[in-house]
C-alpha cells in the first residue's frame, strides 16, 4: 500500500462475516466503516462518502440491491464501485445485482487475495476516473472561458467593423454569423469624395488568430478611407501593419475595390483570392477578375505592389466578391460547389437575380446535411450617385466652433511630388473647420482636380487631349510616370485663406506650379461658355466653387468657395 488509504464501507448483517472483512481491509491499510443493513448502508454512504462499498445482498429491512440503487442515484457523476457479497448462484440473481448498480461479486468464504485484487483494481479505476473528471472540469472551465473571450472579441470586432456602410442601397451582402472566426472580413466605407471602398479579406486559419488581424485591418481601412487616402496607400499601410504584427505564415487574402461614381470606374486590387466576377450590362457578360498579387502581410513594404486594375463601371454593372466558403461548399457526396457551377449562374438573363440565386444554389447544393455557415458574398452595383446620397459627415461637434480664420501655404517639391499624395493631409486640416466637413466630398474633388491639373498639365506639361482615346490614355500615364522620374526644380504650391463672413465663411485656394503656364485668354470668367473646354476638368471645378480665375502666365489658379453657417436651434 503505497497509496493514500481508501475509505471502504462494509455492509453485512452477519456480524462475524463483517469482522472478517473488516480485518482483511484494515490489514490492507484502508479505513473502514460498517453497516448492518441496507438503510444503514445508505446513511453511512451519505455521511462517510466511502470510495468503495462491499455490500451483502440479503439483509434485513432494505436489501443490498435496493441500497445499491439508492446509493448509485445519490452518487450522480461520482464513481462508487459496489462489490456484492453473495453466494447466490442463480444467474438471474446475479443479473439483478448488476442491474441495481453492482460492479463486481465476491462469494463466501472470503478469500483475502481475491478481495485485495478487487479493491486494488477499483482503486486504480477510481484514480483514473478522478483524473478524467478533473481534466473534464478543467476543459469545461477553459471552454467557458474561451467562449466568453470570443464573445468579447466579437463585440469589439462588431464595433470596429460596423461603422461601415454595407447597408447602402447599391450593396447586397451576406456575412455568415460565424465568419469572423473563420477569418472572413467584409468592410465598406465612403471616401470624402463620395467613392466607395470595399474590402473583402480572408485570413489564414480559424478562430482568434484569424480574427485578431482583422482589428488593425479594419481600423486602417476606415480611418484612411474617411481621410480620403487612395486605395494604394491604404493597401500599402495594411500590408505593412499585417507583415509586422502577424507571425510568418499568417496572411490575409484580400480584394479591395474603389467605386468611383464620377469616373464611372471600378478599381480593383486582388491578392490570393479565387476569381471574382464583373458583370457588364452593355454586353450581358461576366468577366473573371483574377488575383495578380500575393496576399496582404506576405511581402515587405519595398516589395509590395499596389498596382490596381481599372474597369469601366456603368450604371447596371455589378461586381461580385465571395469567400472560398462558397466555392468550397460541399454536398453530401463531398463534391465541391466549384467555380464552374458558380460562374454558370451568370448565364441567366436577369442580372437582378444573381445574388439570390448564388445563395439559393449553394444552399440547395449543400442540402440539409452539411450547412457550415462559412460563406461571405457581396454584390456591388453601379448606380447614379444620387441614389445613395451624399457622404454623411458627423456635424455633432457644433458648427460655429473650430478654426474659422487662418491661412496656410503648403509647397511640394521634386521628390515629394513624385511619390507623395498631399490630399489627405490638406483635407484633414480643412476638415477641422466644422462647416467644411459638410462639404468634404466637394472639397476632395476640388482639391484632387486642382492638384492633378497643377502636377500633370502644369509641372509635367502633359496634354490632356491624349486622354481622349483608350491608347492615348495609357500613353498619357506612361508619359506621366516617365516625366515624374526626371523632375527637378519643380514645385506645386497651395495657399489657403479662410475668413469668416457675416453669415458664414469663405475659403480661397490658390495653386501655383513651376510649369510653363498656358493661354487662358479664351476661357471666359462666365462659366457657361467653358463647357466645351473639357481639358482641365474646368467645368467640374466650376460646378464645385463660386469662382475660378487663372492668373499670371496660366501657372496660377485661384478658386473661391463660400458658405452660410446653419445655426442649430
Amino acid at each position: 500500500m503505497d497509496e493514500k488509504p481508501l475509505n471502504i464501507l462494509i455492509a453485512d448483517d452477519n456480524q462475524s462475516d463483517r469482522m472478517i472483512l473488516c480485518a482483511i481491509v484494515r490489514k490492507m491499510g484502508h479505513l473502514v466503516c460498517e453497516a448492518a443493513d441496507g438503510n444503514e448502508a445508505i446513511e453511512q454512504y451519505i455521511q462517510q462518502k466511502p470510495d468503495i462499498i462491499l455490500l451483502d445482498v440479503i439483509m434485513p429491512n432494505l436489501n443490498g440491491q435496493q441500497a445499491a440503487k439508492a446509493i448509485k442515484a445519490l452518487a450522480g457523476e461520482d464513481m462508487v464501485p459496489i462489490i456484492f457479497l453473495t453466494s447466490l448462484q442463480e444467474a438471474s440473481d446475479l443479473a439483478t445485482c448488476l442491474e441495481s448498480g453492482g460492479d463486481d461479486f465476491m462469494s463466501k468464504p472470503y478469500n483475502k487475495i481475491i478481495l485485495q485484487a478487487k479493491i486494488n483494481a477499483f482503486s486504480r479505476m477510481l484514480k483514473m476516473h478522478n483524473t478524467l473528471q478533473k481534466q473534464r472540469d478543467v476543459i469545461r472551465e477553459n471552454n467557458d472561458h474561451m467562449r466568453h473571450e470570443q464573445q468579447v472579441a466579437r463585440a469589439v470586432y462588431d464595433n470596429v467593423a460596423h461603422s461601415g456602410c454595407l447597408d447602402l442601397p447599391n450593396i447586397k451582402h451576406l456575412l455568415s454569423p460565424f465568419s469572423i472566426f473563420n477569418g472572413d472580413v467584409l468592410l465598406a466605407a465612403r471616401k470624402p469624395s463620395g467613392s466607395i471602398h470595399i474590402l473583402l479579406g480572408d485570413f489564414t486559419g480559424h478562430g482568434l488568430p484569424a480574427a485578431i488581424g482583422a482589428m488593425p485591418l479594419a481600423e486602417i481601412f476606415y480611418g484612411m478611407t474617411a481621410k480620403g487616402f487612395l486605395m494604394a496607400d491604404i493597401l500599402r499601410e495594411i500590408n505593412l501593419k499585417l507583415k509586422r504584427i502577424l507571425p510568418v505564415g499568417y496572411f490575409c487574402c484580400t480584394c479591395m475595390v474603389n467605386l468611383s461614381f464620377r469616373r464611372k470606374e471600378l478599381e480593383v486590387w486582388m491578392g490570393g483570392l479565387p476569381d471574382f466576377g464583373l458583370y457588364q450590362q452593355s454586353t450581358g457578360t461576366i468577366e473573371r477578375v483574377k488575383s495578380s498579387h500575393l496576399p496582404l502581410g506576405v511581402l515587405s513594404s519595398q516589395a509590395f505592389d499596389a498596382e490596381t486594375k481599372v474597369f469601366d463601371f456603368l450604371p447596371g454593372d455589378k461586381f461580385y466578391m465571395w469567400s472560398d466558403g462558397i466555392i468550397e461548399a460541399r454536398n453530401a457526396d463531398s463534391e465541391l460547389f466549384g467555380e464552374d457551377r458558380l460562374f454558370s449562374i451568370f448565364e441567366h438573363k436577369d442580372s437582378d437575380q444573381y445574388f439570390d440565386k448564388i445563395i439559393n444554389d449553394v444552399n440547395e447544393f449543400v442540402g440539409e446535411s452539411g450547412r457550415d455557415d462559412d460563406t461571405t458574398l457581396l454584390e456591388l452595383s453601379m448606380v447614379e450617385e444620387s441614389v445613395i446620397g451624399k457622404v454623411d459627415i458627423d456635424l455633432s461637434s457644433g458648427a460655429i466652433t473650430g478654426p474659422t480664420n487662418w491661412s496656410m501655404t503648403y509647397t511640394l517639391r521634386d521628390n515629394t511630388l513624385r511619390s507623395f499624395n498631399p490630399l489627405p493631409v490638406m483635407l484633414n486640416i480643412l476638415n477641422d473647420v466644422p462647416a467644411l466637413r459638410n462639404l468634404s466630398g466637394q472639397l476632395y474633388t476640388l482639391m484632387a482636380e486642382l492638384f492633378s491639373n497643377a502636377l500633370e498639365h502644369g509641372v509635367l506639361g502633359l496634354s490632356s487631349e491624349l486622354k481622349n482615346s483608350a491608347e492615348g490614355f495609357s500613353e498619357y500615364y506612361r508619359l506621366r510616370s516617365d516625366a515624374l522620374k526626371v523632375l527637378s526644380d519643380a514645385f506645386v504650391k497651395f495657399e489657403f485663406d479662410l475668413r469668416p463672413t457675416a453669415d458664414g465663411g469663405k475659403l480661397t485656394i490658390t495653386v501655383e506650379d513651376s510649369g510653363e503656364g498656358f493661354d487662358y485668354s479664351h476661357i471666359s470668367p462666365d462659366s457657361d461658355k467653358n463647357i466645351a473646354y473639357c481639358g482641365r476638368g474646368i467645368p467640374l471645378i466650376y460646378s464645385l466653387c463660386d469662382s475660378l480665375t487663372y492668373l499670371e502666365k496660366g501657372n496660377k489658379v485661384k478658386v473661391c468657395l463660400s458658405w452660410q453657417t446653419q445655426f442649430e436651434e
Partner: protein
Amino acid sequence: MSHLNMAQIQELKDVMEEGFNDLVLTYLQDSDNKFKALKKAINANDCHQVAEVAHSLKGSSANICAEALSALFKKVEDAGRAQELDSVPYTFEKIQEEFTLVKAELQQLK
C-alpha cells in the same frame, strides 16, 4: 477427521490476529440466536424465512471454515427456496450434531 478446514483456519487466524477469539465468540453467539430463529421458522412452515436464515448461517459457517456445516445449511436453504420443507427436520438434526462438533473444535483453538 476435522470438522474445520485447518488450512483455511490458519489463514483466518493470520488475518484476525488477536481478534480471532472475538470472532469465534461472535460466530457462536450469533449462530445460537439464528438457530432459534431457524427452528421457529421451520415450525411455522415459513419457507422464505427458513431460506433467509439458512443462507446467512451457510455464509458465516463457510467463513469460519466449517465446510460440512455450511453444506448442510445450503441443503436447508435450497429446501426453503423450493418450498419443500419435508426433509428439513432430518437435516436440522444433523446440523445440530455437526454444530456441536464444530463448536468444540473452535473452542479448542482459542
